[in-house]
C-alpha cells in the first residue's frame, strides 16, 4: 500500500484514536437517524395514500423493507470487516464486525416478524414459504452461526478471525442462496399459491408519495446502525485491549 494510504488506515484504525473520534460521529448519526425515522413514519403512516389492492395494510413495508435491506447490508459489512481484519490484521475491524453481528441478526428478526404480520392479512397465514422470506430465514441462521462461532473460543482473537472467515464464505453464499430459493419457488409456483403478496406489490409502488418515506426510513435505519455499531465497537475494542494504558484512561480507572 502506498505510504499515505497505509498511514491513513493505521492512524484511523488505531484503537485510542477510534475511541476518541467515534463518540461525536456516533452522536451525529443518532440525531440524524431519530429525525429521519420520525419523518419517514409520518410520511409512511400518515401522508402516503392507501394501496388500491391492500388498503392500509401495505404500510408495514415501511418497517419490513428497510430492515430487510439492513439485514443484507450488515452481513456484507461483516464480510468486509472480516476481510480487512484478516488481511491487514486490524483489530478494530474485528471489533466492528462483532459489534455489527447482533444488530444484523436483530434486523433479520424484525424482517421475519413484520413479513409474517404482513402475510397474515394478505394471505391468511402467518408464514408463507415465499422466496424472500425463506432466504431471510436462512440469512438469520447464517447470522446465528457467525455469532455462535465468534463466542465459542476463549481467545477472543481466534473467535474474531474464525467468525470472519465464516462471514466471508457466508457472504459469497448469500446471493447463491437467494437465487436457489427463487428457483425453488418458481418450481413450486403452481402447487402452493398464485403470485405472492410481496413481489406484486413492490413493482407497482410507483407513486412517489409512497416511495420517499421508504427511502427516508432506510436512511434513518442506516444512521441508527451507524450510531449503534460505533457505540458497541467502542466497548468491543475495550474488551480486546484490556491491559493497555489508553483503555484504563478511557475508562477512568485509577
Amino acid at each position, binding site marked *: 500500500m502506498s505510504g499515505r494510504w497505509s498511514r491513513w488506515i493505521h492512524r484511523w484504525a488505531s484503537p485510542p484514536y477510534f475511541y476518541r473520534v467515534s463518540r461525536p460521529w456516533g452522536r451525529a448519526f443518532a440525531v440524524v437517524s431519530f429525525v429521519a425515522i420520525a419523518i419517514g*413514519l409520518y410520511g409512511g403512516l400518515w401522508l402516503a395514500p392507501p394501496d388500491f389492492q391492500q388498503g392500509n*395494510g401495505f404500510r408495514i413495508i415501511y418497517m419490513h423493507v428497510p430492515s430487510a435491506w439492513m439485514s443484507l447490508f450488515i452481513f456484507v459489512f461483516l464480510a468486509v470487516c472480516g476481510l480487512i481484519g484478516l488481511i491487514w490484521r486490524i483489530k478494530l475491524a474485528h471489533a466492528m464486525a462483532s459489534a455489527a453481528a447482533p444488530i444484523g441478526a436483530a434486523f433479520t428478526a424484525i424482517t421475519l*416478524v413484520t413479513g409474517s*404480520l404482513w402475510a397474515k392479512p394478505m394471505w391468511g397465514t402467518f408464514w408463507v414459504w415465499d422466496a424472500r422470506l425463506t432466504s431471510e430465514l436462512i440469512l438469520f441462521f447464517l447470522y446465528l452461526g457467525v455469532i455462535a462461532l465468534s463466542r465459542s473460543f476463549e481467545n477472543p482473537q481466534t473467535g474474531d478471525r474464525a467468525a470472519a472467515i465464516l462471514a466471508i464464505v457466508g457472504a459469497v453464499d448469500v446471493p447463491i442462496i437467494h437465487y436457489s430459493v427463487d428457483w425453488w419457488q418458481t418450481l413450486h409456483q403452481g402447487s402452493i399459491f398464485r403470485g405472492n403478496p410481496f413481489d406484486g406489490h413492490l413493482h407497482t409502488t410507483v407513486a412517489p408519495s409512497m416511495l420517499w418515506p421508504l427511502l427516508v426510513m432506510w436512511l434513518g435505519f442506516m444512521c441508527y446502525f451507524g450510531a449503534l455499531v460505533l457505540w458497541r465497537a467502542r*466497548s*468491543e475494542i475495550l*474488551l480486546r485491549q484490556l491491559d493497555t494504558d489508553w483503555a484504563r484512561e478511557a475508562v477512568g480507572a485509577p
Partner: protein
Amino acid sequence: MTWSTFWSMGGFALYVWPAFGFGFLVMVGNLVAAVRLEKRARREVREARETHDLES
C-alpha cells in the same frame, strides 16, 4: 387521512401496529444491550487492571 382511520389503519390495525411495535421494541432492545455491553467492558478493564497489578 383522519385520526380514526389512522388508528384503525383501515381495519389492519391488528397487523400494522404490532409490526411497528415489534420493530421498535427490538431496536430499543439493541440500545439496552449496547449499554449493558459498555458496562461489562468498563468493569472488565477495571478488573484487568486490578489482577494485572497483583501479578507484576
